[in-house]
């Protein structure tokens, strides 16, 4: 499977130049760009590991591409995403999110059904990868 989170996951993988133009769009809007990685891609895993703080005072998207590549050196077998944070009153949350790195194999998720009263079912989505401990989940 292909993890479809983020705003560009139905497009071909982004090149470094693509990452730069998108990060520059965020910077030009006054948003702080951040790099995060994880080996637990559950759709409700809000807290991927931070590759440093959001880059609050960085005017140049080349620095974002640099950090993405530094992150890849250590976590190239995991998911890496780029986020943009908007501190404007009334928003104060994420404006952009896109995946820039994937594991070579994406085993995906299984649906666990607990059949309960009547015909009701309690559903759980579980990543196949998280059956292994952290750090051993992808090749």
């Amino acid at each position: 499977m292909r993890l479809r989170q983020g705003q560009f996951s139905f497009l071909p993988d982004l090149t470094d130049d693509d990452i730069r133009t998108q990060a520059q769009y965020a910077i030009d809007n006054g948003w702080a760009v951040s790099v995060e990685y994880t080996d637990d891609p559950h759709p409700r895993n809000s807290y991927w590991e931070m590759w440093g703080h959001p880059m609050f005072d960085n005017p140049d998207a080349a620095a974002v591409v640099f950090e993405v590549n530094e992150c890849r050196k250590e976590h190239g077998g995991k998911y890496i995403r780029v986020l943009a944070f908007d501190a404007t009153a009334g928003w104060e949350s994420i404006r952009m999110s896109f995946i820039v790195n994937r594991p070579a194999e994406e085993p995906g998720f299984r649906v666990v059904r607990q059949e309960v009263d009547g015909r009701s079912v309690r559903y759980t989505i579980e990543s196949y990868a998280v059956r292994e401990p952290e750090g051993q989940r992808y090749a």
Partner: protein
Amino acid sequence: MKDDAKTVTDAKKRYSAGVMKYAQMGYWEPDYEPKDTDIIALFRITPQDGVDEIEAAAAVAGESSTATWTVVWTDRLTACDKYRAKAYRVDPVPNSPGEFFAYIAYDLDLFEPGSIANLTASIIGNVFGFKPLKALRLEDMRLSTAYVKTFQGPATGIVVERERLNAYGRPLLGATVKPKLGLSGRNYGRVVYEALKGGLDFTKDDENINSQPFMHWRDRFLYCMEAVNRASAATGEVKGTYLNVTAATMEEMYERAEFAKSLGSVIIMIDLVIGYTAIQSMAKWARANDMILHLHRAGHSTYTRQRSHGVSFRVIAKWMRLSGVDHLHAGTVVGKLEGDPATTKGYYDIFREEYNPMALENGIFFDQDWASLNKMMPVASGGIHAGQMHQLLTYLGEDVVLQFGGGTIGHPHGIEAGATANRVALESMVFARNAGRDIWNEGEDILRDAAKTCTPLKQALDTWKDVTFDYASTDAPDFAPTPEVSA
């Protein structure tokens, strides 16, 4: 000013039994300066032949506040000057002989806090059937901060909805399941599964899918949630389907909403026809149960569409933001349903902005501060398809749900292909916009390029390339982009 439009100030004359003009009774005050706490209504009035517009405006003020048809002495037991609504300005409508804009101010104490039912009972109560008027339309309202703060506002709001869905930086995508009537629960869930797996964020029940012989509501909910969870596992995304809980009684709606919650749905849906009080009740329930609340505006065109009579949709939008729904349909500009670009922009601004400055060219007559009420997500649906993506993104922006019903399910290679075509078109257009391309002029090229690596998009573009809905609008702003009438 004509003498018969002046307030009679001699108390003995003012309160002697009999009939008196509304303007003389004190409902016309041309010198009145609205207070910051006042609620202001702007009506389009069309007086009967021979009825003076000032008297007509005063009559509207009177009939929507304290007046009855004759003088009553019991007024004198009250602070009646305060409770009388005050018409304070009447302007001719540009290019519309016989029509006038009447501005009427209402004291805050005329209204129960936090009740749309109470507000509407006054503002659109008896007065719309008033004989001296040929027609009456409520065009806009200024809701004072003091009044706005008595409402909950959207249960979830755009920002938190995005956080819950883990979906940022692009419009959300949806589709209404079709055919809207007749599918069994099992077949219905198939459409949901295919569409969500293909790339949509949401699918949607239609407004009249409740609990009919061909599919009772529990069956629908159970099959839909199986589909939602399967699609979520297939894509790694949070998915939702608007489970319509509209029913005959509040008790039944709560029962359906509770069942949706127990199955793990992120969103439920109601129809406008359930009424203002029921909408507010469901909004409170949604806030208390972490549920996104979608409102389908079923029925609104019966009173929003004609320019001379009824209630403008921009007023309905304001009432719904107060009431506390998270999603509301607001037009597509380019699709099959009513809506010109300027008017639709006005609606979208009411949904999504913290503050609306007066913008006559968009039909917005007042500055409106939303006082930190959550933002509502506009929903665009009705006759839109992937080939219009550059127009949709330009007109409607990023915080919107684009719903392609026929444009997903009608895809020649199936529902999943239709969904993928829409998602790829969307992502490629957002990407191009962010990269600095002129999507308005280059949109078709951008889509063609994206279709080179996405066969479903190519098929969609080929199928619907010539489909447009280019009809004159029945409800456009009265003022040109450079307004000649100052305010």
